[in-house]
């Protein structure tokens, strides 16, 4: 079956409705009665809702080096602290081999936050007696309570309830006997009631941590202790077999294990999924180093500045869109009007994609989008110019439309690809500079250009074809002036 223009028209309509539904802010509108919720939101960047962006650089003490795994462990620690700051969409990324970038949009008190982030992590292994503590519990140890650790301890622990599907892992000395994973605990994670847990060793006592395999070949966490600490650990583990211990970072439990054997220098912790193993290794490694972090770059933006800019930018965008649409109608008449419709659809589609991809909207991003409105028209302008030429050569209207599109396509493709190349490089540059502002601009411009290629070639063309098929719009005046004869001739046959 040959596809008719109105088939495309229906397809475009469906897409438009879908986009409209995606964009519509209310989650409860559900035309088809699905139980599925969109759960999509446009994220506002730092410059729009205010907040803090910090670039932290690891400055390890002399003789120590920071590698990717230590940095990743430190990142995880920071991520946990950020959880306690009540920021809804934090971004925490490592950059290069010694920097971590933290973005906290909507943060109210930047001074305190910076202190919290810079705090060096304290890793402890504590004895918890006969109870395995659930991961996420905030506790007090002999080295101090959560209030001394940092602001993460807001009194209410962010407990996960149960410590993972694999149950509580077990620790054992090497060579290890078969480990018995401890029973799942569903107990409430509140241990703030005055109980103080004994710290056996801490981060600086750890020599190394690595993923390794046990006798049965499963992936486990291996760790090594330094000189004096190993004796202390041996005494503890040999007298406490069958009891439990926990790995604690910043007073928060990240792993609990049963003690299955005496450990002197080398031990393993088993009974975890490979993901959990890798995470714990990173934690132990970064905890062992306790790398001090320096703030090398920061941006604090107040919320008022952003809200004002957002309103202004949207107004400016609407004014710009209006002028462009008016210009298109005045200059290109009927095709201009159709291009305007395509432009509105373009805006609709782009927004839907922003929302689907979870693009963070920044001021520069909005500028990129508004700029792409201007550029989106370009493809249409190219096509119409070619169409006019074909009409001047006395081709029938429908042929002129097809030839116009065909001839304009190479220019549209080549020119847009060059813009996309620069967008990709901009994105890379933005990532390096640590500016989500630049990345936002590159991403919105890229999406804008890609969508504009689609709408100009598919949507405008479908509109024009449908018009011709329906026998509407043959009057020459609707296409501008000087090729009236040709258009009229086309209308006649």
């Amino acid at each position, binding site marked *: 079956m040959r596809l008719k223009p109105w088939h495309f028209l229906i397809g475009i309509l469906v897409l438009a409705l879908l986009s409209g539904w995606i964009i519509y802010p209310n989650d409860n509108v559900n035309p088809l009665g699905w139980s599925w919720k969109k759960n999509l939101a446009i994220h506002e960047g730092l410059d729009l809702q205010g907040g803090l962006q910090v670039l932290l650089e690891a400055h390890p003490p002399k003789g120590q080096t920071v590698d990717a795994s230590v940095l990743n462990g430190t990142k995880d620690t920071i991520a946990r602290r950020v959880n306690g700051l009540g920021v809804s969409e934090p971004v925490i990324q490592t950059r290069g081999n010694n920097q971590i970038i933290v973005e906290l949009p909507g943060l109210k008190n930047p001074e305190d936050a910076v202190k919290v982030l810079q705090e060096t992590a304290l890793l402890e292994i504590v004895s918890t007696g006969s109870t395995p503590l659930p991961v996420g519990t905030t506790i007090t140890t002999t080295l101090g309570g959560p209030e001394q650790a940092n602001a993460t301890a807001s009194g209410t622990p962010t407990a996960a309830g149960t410590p993972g599907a694999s149950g509580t892992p077990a620790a054992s000395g090497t060579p290890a006997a078969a480990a018995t994973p401890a029973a799942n605990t569903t107990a409430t994670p509140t241990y703030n009631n005055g109980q103080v847990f004994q710290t056996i060793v801490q981060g600086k006592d750890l020599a190394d941590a690595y993923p390794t395999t046990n006798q049965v070949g499963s992936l486990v966490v291996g760790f090594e202790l330094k000189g004096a600490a190993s004796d202390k650990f041996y005494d503890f583990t040999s007298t406490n077999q069958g009891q439990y211990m926990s790995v604690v970072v910043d007073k928060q439990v990240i792993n609990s294990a049963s003690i299955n054997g005496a450990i002197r220098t080398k031990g393993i912790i088993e009974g975890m999924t490979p993901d959990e193993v890798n995470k714990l290794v990173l934690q132990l490694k970064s905890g062992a180093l306790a790398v001090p972090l320096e703030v090398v770059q920061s941006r604090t933006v107040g919320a008022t500045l952003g809200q004002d800019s957002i309103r202004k930018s949207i107004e400016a965008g609407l004014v710009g869109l209006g*002028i462009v649409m008016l210009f298109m109608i005045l200059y290109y008449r009927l095709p201009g009007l159709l291009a305007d419709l395509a432009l509105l659809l373009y805006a609709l589609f782009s927004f839907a994609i922003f929302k689907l991809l979870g693009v963070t909207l920044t001021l520069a991003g909005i500028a990129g989008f508004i700029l792409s409105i201007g550029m989106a028209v370009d493809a249409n302008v190219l096509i119409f110019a070619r169409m006019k030429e074909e009409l001047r050569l006395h081709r029938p209207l429908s042929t002129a439309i097809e030839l116009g599109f065909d001839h304009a396509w190479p220019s549209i493709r080549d020119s847009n690809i*060059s813009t996309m190349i*620069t967008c990709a490089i901009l994105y890379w540059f933005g990532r390096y500079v640590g500016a989500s502002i630049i990345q936002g601009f590159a991403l919105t411009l890229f999406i804008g250009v890609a969508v504009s290629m689609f709408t100009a070639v598919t949507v405008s063309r479908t509109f024009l074809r449908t018009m011709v098929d329906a026998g509407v719009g043959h009057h020459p005046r609707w296409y501008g002036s000087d090729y009236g004869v040709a258009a009229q001739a086309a209308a006649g046959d």
Partner: protein
Amino acid sequence: MFDVVANRKWFFIGSAVIIVPGLVFLLLGGLKLGIDFTGGSLWEVQFKQAVAPADAKTILGDNGFGDAQVQTAEGNVLQIRLRELKEGSPQKLALENAFRAKFGDFTQLQLQTVGPTVGTSISQRAILAIAFASIGILCYIAYAFRKAQHPFRFGVCAIIAMIHDVFVLLGIFAILGYFFNIEIDSLFVTAVLTVIGFSVHDTIVVFDRVRENTIRRVASSYEEIVNYSLVQTMVRSLNTSLTVVFTLLALYLFGGETIKNFVLALLIGIVSGTYSSIFNASLLLVVWDHQERDGILRRFRRGPATATA
């Protein structure tokens, strides 16, 4: 038909009129680098009543920031540029307290701090980014025009037009920096890269016509072919440029204060990009073709002119 090609000398002079003064101010150190490049802090605070910059400077001096620059902005806002001032540091606390004691309560609109080493590496990356963009585009054009007679020639001319736009942008901002102290930041680099993309975008449309018309042999000489192509694409170039300029103007006039210079850079770049794609890039094709045929560059036989033939 208006003969652009025959008058090409005047269009090159037109470009020089903008670029040469710009270069002079560039050499005079007119381009003011913002903290993104130099390191340091930009602190923007809003007071309840008007505060004289001189008073603020005194307090800054008392706290060891004697070399700070203070500017006023709308709504009792002070923009202070100073040495690295860290969020949560004792120095900042001391400054805040001193300000509160003298001028009453205030709100911090923004504080940007860039360490000195970060600054220099950003400059390097900016230059790298621009270089990568040029190479990427050059390769793409050479590929897209591979069936044309001199694919590499199209690429080089597009890049020259693009460099033209970068210099126009740098030059004008050097002049603005010299007279109005307008600084450039990492958003300016973003604008430069965007302009690069747009400039080439525009140039390709014209080149595409030249390629097509060369194959169709619409005229006997290369000059005529290029001129014909230019006239054919002129309306489109101007219309596209106009629509982009409309949207940017709206953004400049009604948009937020923080991105004003960014939008201005884009505006200048887009206008320059349109000019260079019509009046520089294609005309360079003609110049190149001429030189090759007339053998003026015969002594550069192993130079670019013949190497790409």
